[in-house]
């Protein structure tokens, strides 16, 4: 139980991690993340890398949709832009630590163009404009063969650092996870300052945001550029992970995947993006593991239960929306409050 609030200065009140306990947890988390690929097997490392990429991309979408209220159905296409840009740069011999930000910037530039109509069209209408971007970009991925390699896509060389090739899931893990951590911290910081507050103000009530001196066009475009930058970096990491950029990877289905992730996780919450991406990545894997585990006792399980997986997954999503509309992040906050107040009732 917490016994009080011992913060004695505004700087302490504004800090993210205040108490020694919080700092200890943070340290444990960092050590845990660093040691993870050695403790866990190759399968779990693979899942962890995939999760890291999804977390970055979902956080980008959360900045656009969850915080600023600009619904995007084209997030996967922005990832694709980043992935192809990184593939192009990597094949031209650009090292990965330059290629990744370049991929992000390429995606942000395209995002700016797509975001321009957001001043005139809002809500669902804007969502349809981003849907159009998804299809147009998908078409470009398939047809602009000299750059994108058409339907076959392009391959990427392994990233290398000081002449050493970074190959295998474990090595890629050490690029993806630090990138994800850095980008999460950056996103969290953003919402401690005027820029992040302006985003939320636009989402909640754009008219009074204007009275406070917030230029709607400027901040909507900034949100879109940042969100697309995150998608572009995630796409670039995706390219380095799978060593290929193919058009079907960045389909509408993936855009919807990210929307589902931030809704299940919690719109307008950095933690929500993480939890949502984890839910969307790991629940199907967990269900598959459960089916595989039941199979020896009940042989028809594989035939019967495999299709059930999709249904259970869908039902879980619907269940979360009904019983916890503010997402997993809100659930986490409730659990925390319970332990802070325990043994008193919340």
């Amino acid at each position: 139980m917490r016994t009080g609030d011992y913060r004695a200065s505004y700087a302490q009140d504004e800090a993210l991690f205040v108490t020694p306990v919080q700092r200890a947890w943070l340290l444990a988390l960092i050590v845990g993340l660093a040691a993870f690929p050695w403790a866990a097997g190759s399968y779990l490392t693979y899942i962890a890398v995939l999760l890291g990429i999804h977390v970055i991309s979902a956080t980008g979408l959360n900045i656009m949709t969850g915080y600023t209220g600009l619904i995007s159905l084209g997030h996967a296409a922005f990832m694709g832009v980043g992935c192809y840009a990184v593939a192009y740069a990597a094949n031209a011999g650009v090292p990965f630590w330059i290629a990744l930000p370049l991929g992000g910037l390429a995606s942000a530039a395209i995002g700016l163009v797509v975001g321009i109509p957001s001043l005139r069209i809002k809500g669902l209408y804007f969502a349809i404009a981003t849907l159009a971007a998804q299809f147009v970009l998908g078409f470009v991925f398939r047809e602009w063969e000299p750059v994108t390699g058409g339907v076959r896509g392009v391959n990427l060389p392994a990233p290398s650092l000081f002449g050493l090739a970074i190959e295998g899931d474990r090595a890629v893990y050490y690029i993806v996870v630090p990138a994800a951590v850095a980008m999460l911290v950056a996103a969290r910081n953003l919402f401690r300052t005027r820029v992040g507050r302006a985003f939320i103000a636009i989402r909640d009530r754009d008219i009074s945001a204007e009275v406070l001196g917030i230029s709607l066009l400027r901040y909507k475009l900034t949100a879109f550029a940042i969100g697309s930058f995150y998608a572009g970096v995630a796409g670039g990491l995706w390219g380095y992970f799978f060593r290929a950029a193919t058009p079907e990877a960045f389909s509408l289905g993936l855009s919807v995947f990210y929307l589902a992730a931030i809704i299940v996780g919690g719109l307008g919450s950095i933690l929500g993006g993480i939890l949502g991406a984890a839910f969307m990545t790991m629940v199907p894997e967990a269900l598959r593991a459960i089916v595989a585990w039941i199979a020896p006792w009940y042989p028809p399980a594989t035939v019967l239960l495999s299709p059930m997986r999709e249904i259970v997954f869908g039902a879980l999503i619907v269940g979360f929306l009904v019983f916890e509309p503010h997402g997993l992040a809100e659930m986490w906050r409730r659990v925390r409050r319970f332990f802070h107040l325990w043994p008193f009732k919340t």
Partner: protein
Amino acid sequence: MNILEVERLSLSFGGIRALDDVSLVAPQGAITAVIGPNGAGKTSLFNAISGFYRPERGAIRFEGRDIGRVPASRRAGLGLARTFQNVSLFRGMTVLDNIKLGGHSGLRAGALSAMWYLGRAREEEMRLRAEIEREVIDFLEIDHIRGLSIGALAYGLQKRVELARALAMRPKVLLLDEPVAGMNREETEDMARFILDIQEERGITVMLVEHDMGLVMDISNHVVVLNFGRVIASGTPAEVRASPQVIEAYLGAKAARKARHEA
């Protein structure tokens, strides 16, 4: 000197004249009240001054400069702040973050330095926090609720937080649209005291729209009466109260005749 001048302003919505040749001034450092029956055009006037409506004719001058073409979001930086008739706080944020938004145009950090945070963005945010605590939160006595979310607050407190956000803008002119609507007497008295303090201690010019005649007559230096989009009277509270046109607008022609007989 008049810090805010509205000159021959006309505004219509599809054939309905919301404002018709309206001229009024807000003298520096005074409290000016705009009153009138429902639909008289008071809120339309405020919306024109804040830049939401583009008037067909007329000028709005702020410190002698015509701001008719300045976009709404730029008027905050000039020193024009307002509150809304229906509380327009951001419900997804805490009280403190809402108030901090008032400081938006006074800060400079861009997206990149915000994401890095350490350095200029942090320094700027800390300065804003200290300033808000000292000049707004202590002043309006809302230190006990600064960490709460807006939805958890009673209506009267929400109105006070909205005033706090407007004050955090360090305005020269504060437009208050029905600051005490829906408040009980105690909350109204608190608000009246705050408005007077804002004017007297900080020298901020206040212009308010209000239906609570007790409040208007008590605290304003000048009163302007609108009816059907036109100014029908203006002057000190006592002058306005005695004006036959005003009595007629509020109570009808019969009451006006009766008042004239009694006078």
